[in-house]
């Protein structure tokens, strides 16, 4: 078999046949070499090439050049490339992570001053904020006197307004059932148009410490804070309320909902 029997393309490829078969990673080249393998001319070419390659391999490398390549990390690669940050995929992932982190931070900041019963307190604050005066029965008296009214009109036994707020002048009151079926009394007082909620019966709160710390909870932007008198005030009591773990916060406990501290 002579190399002349190969097609023109195969002849061209056979002339460029790699010296080492390991370098033969091209299908058309493998086919050309396979066809040319039987020819003496191609065998001569291969021997010639290998002999030259062996001669090249024997070229001594000058010591100074050898020194340059003594370290595998001739050019240390930086771990982080600025170009990597410009990659749209990397950019998208980074933005997504930043947004997720931002949401978590906001959530954390929002709930930092939370206390047991905060959810119930928020619901009642929303009710207080959305209540219109027409929904309440007009009652102009001292808040302390409403305990009797609740007992006589709504059969709410022992729903007493704490003495601290007994002197507040009222505008109106009503009794309604909350989402969980608990009866809630709401009182509007003149001072700063406050809404007062007796939530629980007094005898269920025997802990004097708890009863002694009934206080005002500031409602603003969904956060409850005990400090400051310049804001709109909403008062919750009846369940239990006590100072929160953090200064300036107040904790609530609704009847029927027991929250751990």
């Amino acid at each position: 078999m002579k190399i002349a029997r190969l097609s023109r393309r195969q002849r061209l490829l056979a002339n460029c046949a790699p010296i080492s078969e390991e370098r033969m990673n091209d299908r058309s080249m493998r086919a050309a070499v396979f066809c040319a393998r039987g020819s003496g001319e191609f065998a001569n070419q291969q021997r010639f090439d290998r002999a030259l390659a062996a001669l090249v391999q024997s070229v001594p490398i000058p010591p100074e050049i050898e020194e340059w390549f003594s370290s595998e990390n001739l050019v240390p690669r930086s771990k982080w490339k600025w170009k990597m940050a410009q990659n749209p995929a990397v950019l998208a992932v980074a933005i997504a992570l930043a947004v997720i982190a931002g949401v978590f931070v906001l959530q954390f900041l929002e709930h930092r001053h939370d206390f047991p019963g905060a959810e119930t307190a928020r619901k009642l604050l929303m009710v207080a904020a959305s209540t219109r005066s027409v929904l309440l029965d007009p009652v102009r008296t001292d808040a302390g006197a409403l305990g009797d009214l609740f007992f006589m009109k709504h059969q709410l036994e022992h729903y007493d307004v704490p003495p601290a707020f007994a002197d507040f002048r009222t505008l109106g009151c009503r009794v309604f059932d909350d989402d969980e079926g608990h009866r809630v009394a709401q009182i509007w007082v003149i001072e700063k148009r406050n809404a007062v909620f007796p939530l629980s019966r007094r005898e269920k709160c025997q802990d004097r410490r708890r009863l002694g710390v009934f206080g005002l909870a500031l409602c603003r932007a969904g956060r409850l804070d005990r400090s400051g008198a310049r804001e709109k005030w909403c008062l919750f009591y009846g369940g239990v309320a006590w100072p929160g773990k953090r200064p300036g916060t107040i904790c609530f406990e609704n009847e029927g909902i027991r929250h751990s501290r």
Partner: protein
Amino acid sequence: MLGDARKAQEVLGATLREATLRSANGETPSDPFWLFRDARWRCLETSEHGLQAEKVEFQEHDLSPSAPAQIERLDVNQLAIWISAAPEPQRTALALFYLDEFNHREILSLAELKIGEISRLLANGRRQFQAWLNTTVPQREAK
């Protein structure tokens, strides 16, 4: 490609310096052969200065079965000088094929040649080298 160890070392140093700078600036090209391409152009530029090989018509002989024995008797510097004296782009093709053992596709990319040209340059190079071998190391001596 240069036939001169000192010039070759200078070109290698300059190429590596360029590679280091590019790498440090994060400007390494995506072309995997850019270092060889750069080195080749530097070699061509350098070879334009100084002594130039005389343009002669090389004789061509068929490859001989005793060529490996003839090559064995050669000094490696003789091979380097012979390749460096070859005209461009044959010199590039021979250097990339024999010195760096690139395959034909890589040489096509590096030397910007067509397959027909590379094939002709390599085949002619072998026949011319055989002719030179026959003169330098006669076959009877090699045997």
